[in-house]
């Protein structure tokens, strides 16, 4: 038997006219896909010629995983292959079924046109596909079961193979190696299973021994990994023939690695993947709950609609417009946020709600919703700051009794500026945050002026956990939820703008006097007619801020801390001798509400806002987009009638210079430095002696006087 490459095969084919050789090209492999690589000659592909020759007579080849071809039977139901190949039917059983192995792989067919055609002289020239033993280089196709079944069906039955494509080229190359094996195998197998072993082998010849030795070597199990080369090579070739990558020879080593790794992954399937996928499934479940919530409430549809219309904004519409500007979170993510907002409005008594934006963090992000509660439905929070104030006052009073003890410190903490009431100033809206849509919404606490003042001095990334401490200098009074709230307040005050005329001041002017600092209420202007988009883009004076500016004090409405101080100070005035506070603090004034943004300050020659048209190609439907340069990530759009603000970013202000942390103040002089606490040098020996001498002198003098007095007294008594 020659181990020959294809030409040889051809020759053989030609030789044996009667051979039923199935061209493996057209056969489709009906068998299931990949079976586990079996060690039994998977790759024995072409053993055609040899085997054919040898076991002409009865080579159902069933034992091997060859496709059983209906020996002699009509062409199997195999599909026809690409045609131009002539197939030979294994018409006669004796004619050794072409040792074509079935190629269960789907890959493209190769043809041995050249070899096949000359064989046309075979008994069955018609190109019937026959699934017969195609020789295929892919061992995996044939499964053991198949083999078994085939063993039984030794007669020429059309083997219901699926489309099989054998790569001829591969086949050829493997032939050399595997023909030998195949023969040997077929021989051996046939011997085992088939009554008719098929021809020739009689006494094992030298070559056969060599082959068997070689095969035994390949089958040797590696001591390290438990694999053997034979299986591995057959698996690899199976994979290659299945997938048919381009330039397979270049990635051959990678494929080898992959096949080896594939062994491991299967064993750990059950345990391995569960852990990893669990969080994914959890989130998916939560988000599924979002989608289902709509179905739950069907009862109060009418009431709901009334409220829902007011409360829930049309997030998708705004998202559409922002997408025109190139800003947005992606449609399905936005939709999930939309549903989460709906859930928020359903569970809380909310008058109005808006998707404020998204703040990125290190570990997790925040999705922020700006909410206005219905009248009278505010949830009050316990005030804790007053406690701090009282403590300060208490300390200064306690010390007055003990004068000889510690010197009294005249450090008086500056009075904490009280926070603004809800619904006014910086606390006009309540903010809810969540990390991902589907997670529960958490309400952020109202903001305190001190927090805003310090937030202006620090610059920290958000971690994503609301209870994370903010470690900074100056020390931030609060944790991340407070810092987040302060930044949200600053961003809102700095970047929430609307077209001029959209909002107008309320009709009642009486409030103006009560509230210092100007108007802080506005309402929608029903007569707003819209502004041309081009106008909105060209001139910044067409946009106004509709959120109050935050003063450097940290509040929107000026709080005069001096007035209150005077009342409290009256009691303590006797003890405090020195007041270091100025008697008069200038009132801070900020730009009033509804000032146009053209009045915004520039940052070192950079205009505070950048205006663009969303599209230059189709200007008639474009919208005006404004980006803030002061707070990168703040966007506003308007199409003339509608407008919306949005923020997406890290939550920090822009500054062209680098951040410099504030320097700690000089050490404060807490105690009056008088002789009682001032350090003095210890007296030297001479000084001490002199002092002692002086004291003794004084004592002597005193004693003399006393003795004189005593004598006088004694005289009196007498």
């Amino acid at each position, binding site marked *: 038997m020659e181990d020959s490459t294809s030409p040889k095969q051809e020759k053989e084919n030609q030789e044996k006219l009667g051979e039923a050789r199935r061209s493996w090209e057209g056969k489709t492999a009906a068998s299931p896909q990949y079976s586990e690589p079996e060690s039994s000659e998977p790759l024995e592909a072409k053993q055609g010629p040899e085997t054919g020759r040898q076991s002409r007579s009865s080579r159902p080849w069933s034992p091997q995983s060859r496709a059983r071809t209906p020996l002699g039977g009509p062409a199997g139901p195999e599909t026809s292959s690409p045609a131009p190949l002539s197939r030979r039917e294994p018409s006669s059983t004796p004619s050794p079924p072409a040792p074509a192995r079935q190629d269960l792989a789907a890959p493209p067919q190769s043809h041995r046109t050249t070899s096949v055609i000359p064989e046309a002289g075979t008994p069955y020239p018609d190109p019937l596909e026959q699934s017969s033993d195609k020789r295929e280089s892919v061992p995996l196709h044939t499964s053991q079961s198949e083999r078994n079944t085939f063993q039984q069906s030794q007669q020429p039955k059309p083997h219901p193979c699926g489309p099989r494509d054998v790569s001829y080229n591969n086949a050829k190359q493997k032939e050399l190696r595997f023909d030998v094996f195949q023969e040997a195998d077929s021989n051996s197998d046939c011997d085992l299973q088939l009554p008719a072993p098929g021809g020739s082998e009689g006494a094992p010849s030298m070559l056969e021994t060599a082959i068997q030795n070689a095969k035994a070597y390949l089958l040797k199990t590696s001591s390290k990994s438990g694999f053997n080369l034979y299986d591995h090579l057959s698996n690899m070739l199976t994979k290659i023939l299945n997938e048919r990558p381009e330039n397979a020879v270049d990635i051959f080593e*990678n494929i080898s690695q992959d096949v080896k790794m594939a062994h491991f992954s299967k064993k750990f399937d059950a345990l391995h993947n569960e852990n990893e*996928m669990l969080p994914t499934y959890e989130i998916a479940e939560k988000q599924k709950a979002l989608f289902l919530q709509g179905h739950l409430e069907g009862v109060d549809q009418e009431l709901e609609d009334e409220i829902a219309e007011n409360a829930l904004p049309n997030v998708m519409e705004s998202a559409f417009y922002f*997408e025109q500007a*190139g800003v947005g*979170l992606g449609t399905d*993510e936005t939709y999930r946020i939309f549903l989460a907002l709906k859930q928020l409005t359903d569970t809380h008594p909310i008058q109005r709600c808006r998707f404020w934006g998204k703040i990125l*963090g290190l570990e997790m992000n925040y999705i922020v919703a700006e909410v206005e509660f219905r009248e009278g439905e505010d949830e009050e929070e316990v005030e804790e700051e007053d406690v701090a104030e009282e403590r300060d006052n208490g300390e200064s009073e306690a010390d007055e009794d003990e004068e000889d003890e510690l010197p009294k410190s005249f450090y008086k903490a500056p009075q904490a500026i009280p926070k603004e009431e809800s619904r006014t100033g910086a606390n006009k809206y309540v903010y809810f945050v969540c990390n991902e849509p589907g997670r529960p919404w958490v309400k952020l606490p109202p903001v305190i002026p001190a927090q805003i003042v310090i937030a202006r001095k620090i610059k920290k990334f958000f971690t994503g956990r609301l209870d994370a401490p903010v470690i900074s200098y100056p020390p931030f009074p609060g944790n991340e939820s407070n810092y987040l709230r302060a930044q949200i307040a600053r961003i809102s005050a700095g970047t929430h703008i609307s077209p001029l005329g959209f909002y107008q001041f309320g009709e009642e002017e009486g409030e103006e006097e009560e509230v210092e600092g100007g108007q802080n209420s506005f309402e929608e202007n029903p007569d707003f007619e819209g502004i041309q988009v081009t106008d909105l883009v060209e001139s910044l004076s067409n946009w106004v801020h509709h959120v109050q500016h935050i003063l450097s004090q940290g509040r929107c409405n000026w709080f005069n801390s001096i007035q209150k101080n005077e009342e409290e100070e009256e009691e303590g005035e006797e003890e405090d001798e020195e007041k270091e506070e100025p008697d008069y603090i200038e009132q801070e004034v900020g730009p009033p509400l509804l000032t146009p943004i053209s009045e915004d300050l520039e940052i070192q020659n950079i205009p505070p806002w950048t205006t663009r048209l969303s599209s230059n190609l189709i200007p008639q439907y474009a919208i005006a987009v404004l980006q803030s340069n002061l707070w990168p990530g703040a966007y506003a759009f308007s199409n003339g009638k509608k407008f919306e603000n949005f923020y997406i970013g890290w939550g920090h202000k822009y500054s062209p210079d680098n*951040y410099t942390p504030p320097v700690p103040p000089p050490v404060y002089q807490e105690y009056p430095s008088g002789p009682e606490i001032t350090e003095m040098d210890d007296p030297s020996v001479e000084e001490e002696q002199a002092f002692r001498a002086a004291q003794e002198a004084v004592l002597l003098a005193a004693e003399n006087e006393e003795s004189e007095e005593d004598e006088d007294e004694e005289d009196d008594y007498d």
Partner: protein
Amino acid sequence: MDADSLLLSLELASGSGQGLSPDRRASLLTSLMLVKRDYRYDRVLFWGRILGLVADYYIAQGLSEDQLAPRKTLYSLNCTEWSLLPPATEEMVAQSSVVKGRFMGDPSYEYEHTELQKVNEGDKVFEEEIVVQIKEETRLVSVIDQIDKAVAIIPRGALFKTPFGPTHVNRTFEGLSLSEAKKLSSYFHFREPVELKNKTLLEKADLDPSLDFMDSLEHDIPKGSWSIQMERGNALVVLRSLLWPGLTFYHAPRTKHYGYIYVGTGEKNMDLPFML
């Protein structure tokens, strides 16, 4: 991100909020095809967008067969017409490092920077103020180069090196597994390795020379300059650079999809140590 999978990539990177408007997207799809054909690149990457005050720059990069060879950078103002940028030299980088602030948006804009230079005139040495003009194009080139060298990343296993030298795209790359995706060591800088030779021998012994031939992100300074997050419930891993805010890298674990995009002002975040 690969120009071939632009739409999907944009969708996956949308978590950072900045993306592209539909008309830009549409024009990119067509114009990048043409760029690929005209310049005969093997792969065209859409690098990102640098926001300027007046206009934005859209940047694309073309790669040849060898993935680690210097990339050609192109820019466009309208996503339709692309112009090639000169390669970055050290001189350019040094020159533009003095410029601060935002990009203007006009490539011919010139920044003025006054420098004190010592001028020798005979025996006298005095300082003169010289106004140096730096073109915005130069600055653009150097910023893109700096960003690439600092924060352009790819997952481990996406490229492999052959003994002949060139680096190829690994066609059998199936994606990182979930546990690998959360570790910084599974991502490499997409540039010639700088620190690889500083590794100890023990570490080097564990490396696979065909896959581990670039620096990993683990040893980046400052530590913590990358934010790793899983979005969409573990179906997407997103890395954001804190040193160059605006750079987003995304990867869907167990799939072949990965890429990075930069959308930002083109300024380094020098305050990073204070912010962590």
